[in-house]
């Protein structure tokens, strides 16, 4: 921990005490959506398409409807009565159950609610579907060819957000592309003045989030006057809005409740299980639980595989001048969050470097595979893989040290990323120098080789805009007569430590210990509105709303006391639920009951935050904060087997101010290990439209054994964040640099360049063979 702030000691900020959710989670008492059990609750299962692409000629569910224990069967016949039975973020293209076609292996065709899952499964087996198979689209580069099959024949129903300077978006710009994001700044002729122009292509593999708590919800539409939904969901208010639109309901008749979430990593944004469960519950008149298996999770949401083509113009001294890029994202069969991911991958592709000219086009390409959506890093992972690999390649081509090349071109502290953007809020060189020191990068020339095993080191800087786009946040802080604090806001606890960090902020402002705060359960009927727990926005965006809410409550308390004590509020301080005036201490509880009667009172403060809209900013509003993940790796490459051993992995993020050090460390290290797995082995493997490793046994996620022998992280506290006490968001940054740092280290070790993930022994051997073949 490198604390660079000189703030006075505080009650709560920076303390490595137990997380707010520690006791519940280590004792098995924490409640998750999987634990919700309502009287009379039925269980849902769905029938999935065995075809990657097919027209549905007929569905016969009559036998299933007549089976014992079956209470509702949902097919396209039933969804026809639902006002708008499709969903999605920008583009409403995913049906609740398939209507005319199925578009991937795993597409939902029918659903059953029964007394138990076994009865539901038996009913599904009795549903007959007559398919007319169609050609599949699985290749990103040929998906827009005139003879490629088309996933959607009709024009998309969707919107393009209002972009600012240089940015634009388009729906369906070409065949099988649901969205294109483009960005352009600087003079078009900038390449003409470059000494060198380098063009390279990078391929990025696709992971599944592998959140341990499955996609799950419990839906209750057994009453006429409204629906209740418990769901493992990152953005309950967005889901409420979608549910209202789909079913034609008033939003104040939909209660969405989110207990603890057992992991999400982006996957649990937007509708997943909810529309099916609600439709079944309405048909059955009973509550319905719909819990996917882990295998079904692979068929529900994934990361985006990608092809990234970079063209970069530089001067011979290593000065970057111009960057053009074309990015193809494999968005799968439905758009889900893909337009937003395209926007972010396209926007982030230039990395944290200064260019005179940037032009980017990023395409969301539809294929007959599982829908891709938000995944930790959100387009930034793809962008960083390509960007940080190419910077290294260019440096080596020019004979410049890759570290010096970065140093030369990094954006300065306070310098806007691009015109109209907010300034860089981390000293990028400070972080890079930290990696260089921790890794011993300067001594890499002296790394010993061990026979056929060669060693090398690599660096990378992951980069993304953090805090979401144009995102408002609202929080409410209530303080009871006895000084008990109720914190109400819509940030859900996915494991990232939001309860802990946000409670610490509220407590600090109220002169209380964090233990006095209860983070209130999330229910859209009572929680303040929130757009969603994503984009590392918890502390940097919601944190500012919580901070203001707590300060508003504090102000009310001080003004109340000032009135009672006959002095100015400015003379008073609040600590330990006493009013301090000089060396006098006045307990608040008796003062409150003296004024309001024996039942007492609650002080209520509200806080709002939103970055201002700006047409000068390319993405509606200037970025809230810049999320940076610096990384370095030392590898040992066995030139006989191709095996890459990551001996050292060092990552560091900038928390601005670490509200809770253990939470910050957990975010960086958890993200880094996800990046490590993606670098070396973790990937979804498709054979055509068929996923061949979509289960826990054959899909390899990292285990404790996979950690490098030397794996370390440091949470920097550079102090420039916009959040409370100078905090910045965490959670995604440290995933971003890992794969390229390892690829760069492999290059350093054995002089080969791998441009496709994962960095498998087969690819290493093939590249070594190619290098040795003149």
């Amino acid at each position: 921990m490198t604390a660079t702030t000189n703030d006075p000691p505080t009650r709560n900020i920076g303390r490595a005490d137990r997380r707010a959710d520690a006791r519940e989670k280590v004792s098995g008492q924490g409640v998750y959506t999987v634990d919700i059990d309502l009287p009379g609750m039925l269980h849902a299962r769905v029938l999935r398409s065995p075809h990657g692409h097919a027209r549905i000629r007929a569905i016969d569910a009559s036998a299933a409807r007549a089976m014992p224990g079956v209470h509702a069967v949902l097919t396209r016949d039933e969804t026809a009565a639902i006002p708008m039975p499709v969903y999605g973020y920008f583009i409403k293209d995913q049906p609740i159950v398939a209507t005319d076609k199925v578009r991937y292996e795993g597409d939902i065709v029918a659903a059953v609610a029964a007394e138990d899952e076994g009865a539901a499964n038996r009913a599904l087996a009795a549903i007959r579907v007559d398919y007319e198979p169609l050609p599949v689209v699985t290749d990103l580069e040929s998906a827009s060819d005139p003879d490629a099959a088309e996933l959607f024949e009709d024009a998309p129903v969707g919107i393009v957000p209002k972009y600012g300077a240089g940015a634009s978006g388009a729906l369906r710009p070409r065949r099988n592309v649901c969205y294109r994001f483009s960005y352009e700044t600087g003079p078009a002729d900038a390449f003409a003045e470059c000494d060198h122009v380098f063009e390279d292509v990078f391929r990025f593999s696709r992971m599944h989030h592998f959140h341990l708590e499955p996609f799950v919800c419990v839906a209750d539409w057994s009453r006429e006057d409204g629906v209740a939904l418990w769901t493992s969901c990152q953005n309950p208010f967005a889901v409420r809005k979608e549910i209202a639109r789909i079913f034609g309901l008033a939003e104040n008749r939909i209660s969405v409740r989110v207990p603890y979430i057992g992991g999400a990593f982006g996957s649990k944004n937007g509708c997943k299980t909810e529309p099916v469960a609600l439709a079944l519950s309405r048909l059955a008149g009973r509550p319905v639980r719909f819990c996917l298996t882990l295998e079904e999770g692979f068929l529900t949401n994934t990361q985006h595989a990608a092809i990234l083509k970079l063209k970069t113009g530089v001067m011979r001294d290593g000065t970057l001048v111009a960057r053009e890029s074309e990015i193809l994202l494999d968005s799968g069969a439905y758009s889900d969050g893909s337009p937003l991911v395209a926007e972010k991958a396209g926007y982030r592709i230039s990395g944290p470097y200064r260019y005179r000219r940037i032009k980017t086009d990023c395409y969301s390409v539809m294929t007959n595979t599982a829908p891709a959506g938000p995944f930790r890093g959100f387009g930034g992972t793809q962008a960083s893989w390509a960007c940080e690999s190419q910077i290294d390649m260019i440096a080596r081509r020019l004979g410049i040290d890759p570290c010096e090349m970065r140093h030369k071109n990094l954006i300065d502290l306070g310098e806007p990323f691009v015109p109209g953007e907010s300034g860089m809020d981390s000293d990028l060189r400070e972080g890079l120098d930290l990696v260089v020191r921790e890794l011993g990068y300067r001594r890499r020339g002296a790394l010993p080789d061990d026979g056929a095993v060669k060693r090398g080191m690599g660096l990378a800087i992951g980069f993304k805009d953090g805090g979401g786009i144009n995102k408002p946040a609202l929080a409410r802080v209530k303080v009871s007569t006895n000084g008990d604090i109720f914190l109400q806001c819509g940030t859900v606890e996915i494991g990232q430590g939001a309860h802990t960090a946000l409670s610490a902020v509220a407590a600090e402002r109220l002169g209380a210990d964090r233990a006095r705060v209860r983070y209130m359960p999330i229910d859209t009927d009572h929680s303040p509105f929130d757009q969603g727990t994503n984009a590392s926005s918890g502390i940097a965006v919601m944190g500012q709303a919580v901070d203001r809410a707590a300060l508003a409550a504090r102000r009310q308390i001080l003004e109340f006391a000032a009135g009672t004590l006959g002095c100015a509020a400015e003379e008073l301080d609040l600590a330990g639920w006493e009013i301090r005036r000089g060396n006098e201490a006045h307990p608040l509880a008796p003062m409150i009951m003296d004024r309001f009667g024996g039942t007492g009172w609650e002080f209520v403060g509200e806080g709002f935050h939103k970055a201002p809209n700006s047409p000068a900013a390319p993405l509606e509003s200037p970025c809230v904060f810049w999320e940076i993940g610096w990384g370095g790796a030392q590898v040992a490459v066995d030139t006989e087997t191709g095996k890459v051993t990551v001996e050292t992995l060092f990552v560091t993020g900038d928390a601005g101010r670490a509200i809770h050090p253990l939470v910050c460390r957990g975010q960086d290290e958890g993200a880094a290990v996800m990046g490590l797995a993606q670098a070396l082995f973790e990937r979804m493997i498709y054979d055509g439209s068929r996923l061949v490793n979509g289960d826990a046994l054959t899909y390899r996620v990292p285990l404790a054994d996979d950690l490098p022998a030397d794996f370390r992280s440091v949470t920097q506290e550079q102090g420039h964040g916009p959040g409370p006490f100078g905090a910045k968001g965490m959670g995604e940054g440290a995933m971003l640099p890992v794969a390229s740092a390892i690829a760069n280290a492999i290059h350093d070790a054995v002089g080969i360049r791998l441009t496709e993930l994962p960095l498998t022994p087969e690819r290493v051997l093939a590249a070594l063979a190619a290098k040795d073949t003149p």
Partner: protein
Amino acid sequence: MAERLDPRFDLSFTLNGAPVEVATTTATTLADLLRERRDGRGTKLACERAVCGACTVLIDGLPRAGCSVFAFEVAGCEVVTVEGLATDGALSPVQAAFADNAAFQCGFCTAGMILLAEALLARDPDPDEATIRDWISSNICRCTGYGPILEAVGDAARRRREAAR
């Protein structure tokens, strides 16, 4: 129909030190049996293929994936779940070490990880780092990157040894 394929029977075993007599079926897994109880939802199901270890429970002291053990297999056995670790509200040393080291994030793997660590430390009160890493590698945590979990197990071993002194 389900009844004929899946006959009911009476099962006796010990759960967290207390005798349990329960009517169940031959096809019921231990994890499902536990989760049907009001006090049994701390045992979490994730992959349900005995890979991830989220549903780890102790059967006669050995860690087993509750998703892949039939209930009838525990007849006469001592079963320990996460609900059985605290004593009079006091966390076990392993639980306390997980809490203090933030060796969890979303918490979904935590019960299984804690029971795995309990089993390790019951067998080897002073495991070296390689042994801890080897044992913890039988379960999956998707959030933490494992570092805090490995540290918590070492910390728990120290706490247990100190408590035994």
